[in-house]
């Protein structure tokens, strides 16, 4: 049963401190929705309100059209995976997965069948009798996932489920979670501080900072059209440069980055579709990979300050006028320049994104 989740202007105060302010979202049935932000941004608080461990100070939470704002967590039919997995150490793998089914008073036979199916789903068929401390971190993770999924939850909540795994396992498990989510089609809310996880798995992302929602959108929207400085710098790498609008001609906007350094962007490439006026101070976001070597539109020259060769790419830190820019050139066998060399760069119009203040 797919359910939608609606947070209707939800706020949470801790004493006088603001935990989360005015979150208003609508997660569609079957959607993979991610809360992304640095630690302390309120993403886990929001998730815990959906789970029922906190009650909102203001606003309502609805599953489909049912108001669950102050419903106890055990009445919500949610599956939750915790950051530290929160497995029951005194039970076996089988008993852990069966816990939620026993609570629901299913018969022994049904429980056995369902648990075995869940074990298969997460590739732990042979581990039923193991104790939790006999499993590796990745296996524990999968038990936690199976335990949350076996009760056929209306909503799956995942609280930084990959943060305790090493890099390689993290990538594997990421694919695994996404596969299960697509196969089962369960509405999923995922909390993470890792932008790669958010970008690769989500249908939509909500970026948060200090309890306030910064932007909600698809991964492409968040990456290509960040609404503000924070989003642009938090998601991927970006050069954020101070600029002043000097000319607006129909769709074309010319901005001044420095004495004698101008670039031209497009009004359609401005945050929130904001109309810009001449004389306005703004910020310009240019991704390192949007900058190319050689001559072309929006051409500038700079001095190389630092060179880094990663194999896939050559990364330069270039001083252009008074600005420092990071540039990423795909390695196609091109000559690698040295510190102090002069370099000519250009940025196509679609690589320039204008962020109003």
């Amino acid at each position: 049963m797919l359910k939608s989740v609606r947070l209707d202007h939800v706020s949470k105060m801790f004493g006088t401190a603001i935990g989360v302010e005015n979150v208003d979202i609508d997660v569609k049935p079957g959607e993979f929705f991610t809360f992304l932000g640095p630690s302390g941004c309120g993403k886990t608080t929001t998730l815990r309100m959906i789970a029922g461990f906190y009650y909102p100070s203001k606003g309502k939470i609805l599953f489909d059209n049912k108001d669950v704002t102050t419903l106890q967590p055990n009445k919500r039919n949610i599956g939750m995976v915790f950051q530290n997995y929160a497995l029951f150490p005194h039970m076996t793998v089988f008993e852990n997965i069966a816990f939620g089914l026993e609570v629901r008073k299913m018969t022994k036979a049904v429980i056995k069948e369902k648990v075995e199916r869940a074990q298969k789903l997460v590739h732990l068929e042979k581990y039923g009798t193991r104790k939790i401390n006999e499993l590796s971190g990745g296996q524990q993770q999968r038990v936690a996932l199976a335990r949350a999924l076996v009760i056929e939850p209306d909503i799956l909540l995942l609280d930084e489920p990959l943060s305790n795994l090493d890099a390689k396992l993290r990538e594997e498990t990421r694919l695994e979670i996404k596969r299960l989510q697509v196969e089962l089609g369960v509405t999923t809310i995922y909390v993470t501080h890792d932008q790669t996880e958010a970008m690769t798995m989500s249908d939509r992302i909500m970026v948060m900072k200090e309890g306030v929602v910064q932007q909600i959108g698809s991964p492409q929207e968040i990456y290509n059209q960040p609404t503000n400085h924070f989003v642009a710098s938090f998601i991927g790498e970006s050069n954020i440069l101070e600029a002043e609008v000097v000319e607006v001609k129909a769709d074309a906007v010319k901005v001044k980055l420095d004495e004698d350094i101008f670039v031209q962007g497009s009004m359609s490439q401005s945050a929130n579709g904001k109309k810009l006026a001449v004389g306005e101070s703004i910020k310009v976001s240019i991704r390192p990979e949007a900058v190319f070597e050689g001559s072309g539109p929006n051409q500038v020259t700079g001095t190389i300050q630092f060179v880094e060769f990663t194999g896939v790419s050559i990364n330069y830190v270039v001083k252009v006028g008074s600005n420092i820019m990071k540039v990423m050139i795909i390695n196609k066998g091109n000559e690698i320049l040295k510190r102090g060399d002069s370099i000519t760069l250009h940025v196509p119009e679609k690589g320039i994104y204008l962020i109003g203040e």
Partner: protein
Amino acid sequence: MGANQPTVVQENWWARLTRSKYFVYVLISPLFLVLLAYVIYPFYQTFLQSVVGEEGATLENYQRFFGLTSTANLEALWTSVYISVISVITCAIVGVTMAFLMERYEFPGRKLLSVLILVPMALPPLVGVLSFTFLYGESGIIPRAFQVLFDLEKVPFSLKGVMGVIVVHTFTMYTYFYLTAAAAIKGLDPSLEEAATSLGSGRIRIWLKVILPMLTPALIASSLLVFMISMASYTAPLMFGVERTMTMQIYLSRTNGSLDMAATQSTILSIVSISFLILMRWYQGRRNYQNQSKGISVHRTELRSQFAKYMSMVLSFIGVIILMLPILVLVLISFSVDGEWTVQVIPTAYTLQHYIDLFTDERTWRPIWNSLQMSFVATAGNILFGVAAAYAMVRTKFKGKALLDILIMVPWALPGTVVAVNLIAAFSEPNVFSFNQVLIGTFWILPLAYFVRHLPLIFRSTSAALMQMDESVEEAARSLGANWWYSFRRVVVPMAFSGILAGTLLALVQGIGEFVASILIYSTSTMPLSVAIFQKMYAFQFGTACAYGVLQIILIITVLFVSQKITDGKAGSAI
């Protein structure tokens, strides 16, 4: 769809109550009620008795206590304080020296010694004092052996009076210093000393500036503890005939029938004990050196010279003997025929009869059965209270948390004598808390005393276990649909089980061995084991007394061993 009104889920009153933020007060109010009824109210009754004379409120008793017309009370206070201070010093010297030797040096016999060093913890207070009088008393085995060996007129030395009390205190309480100091030394990063050496410090400076300051918190905490326990000590002064201590004075006032004076003495001793408890809590919260370094590898210095090796072997041997003697002598005497041992060095006739009697003779078995029953009843109460209180303290937030914490610890700080006096004051007459019964003289007063005295044991071991359990585990159970009670039963209790069990076993054996409060409030029909030992002693039935004692020691060693196994030594904080 959009036209649908949100439906509100209907809940019953219980569900609504459990998610109310005041629900926690529903949970903790029984805890406060128990503390009010059996800790605060009895204490208040004693206080009342001390200040209410025949013509209303009076401070006459306190004037008599501090007055100079009869100095017995002031002397008692002074003796208690100075015995305690000297006990702290001797325990500190023995405990810390042992800790350093054990943790820092490798020598032949270290392994064996490190196990036996905790033997004094296995001695119940009464039994410990008993074996000391058998060993070192005026007609004790060791002094007599010397007398016979060197053909002397009279025994060359013997333990008696204040000296005896201090020696027994040192033997039974140095373990507090040993345990805390050993833990602190284990946590002491050797690289700190190496760093100090590399900066040009000599050994003495390292000791004064590095090692001692790092050990200070452990030493102060143990000092306060030993002082408190010494002040409460009753058995040692009783057996060595030191009448001028606070606890003995209370006992004597009671037996002389001057109840108001006993109440006054109890109140004053309580105030001292509780002040020390508060001081201790405050100090523990204030100061704690944490080592910055992660992997600590202690390297023990090996003794190189042959001489040092032989010396250490001899000393270890002596240490082992001293530690084992009290138990060995009890075992020896438990096989002796009663009445046969008079002026000889060791008993001359032996029998197995005492052990057979323990379980077959109705009169001998009775006190064991009494103690088992009463301790079980008390421990059952302790489990209920301790687990609930630990859960409330660790998992919930409420106003009055610090108060609950201190109230639970108070009975532990109160001398057993005072607990008994308080209960007598409160339950000699029917009242609400005794369900309108007179409890004094019935079966129930002793379990109640054990319950109060051992209130913190299960609470502390369970708290320690709960603190190691991640809160999200409980949340996981809730998210899977379990209600509060179901997750408490299926998740919280099983996970805290080792802690609960460790505390339970401890409370059980302590209840079986309890003497200090029992001696004041037992009735002949409910005579507990320890009082029976005491009476057999005075009836010169040493064999039976010691057989009882050996039984207790076996129980305690079993319990210590089992709790060590089930908790991997983690819940040791219960003691």
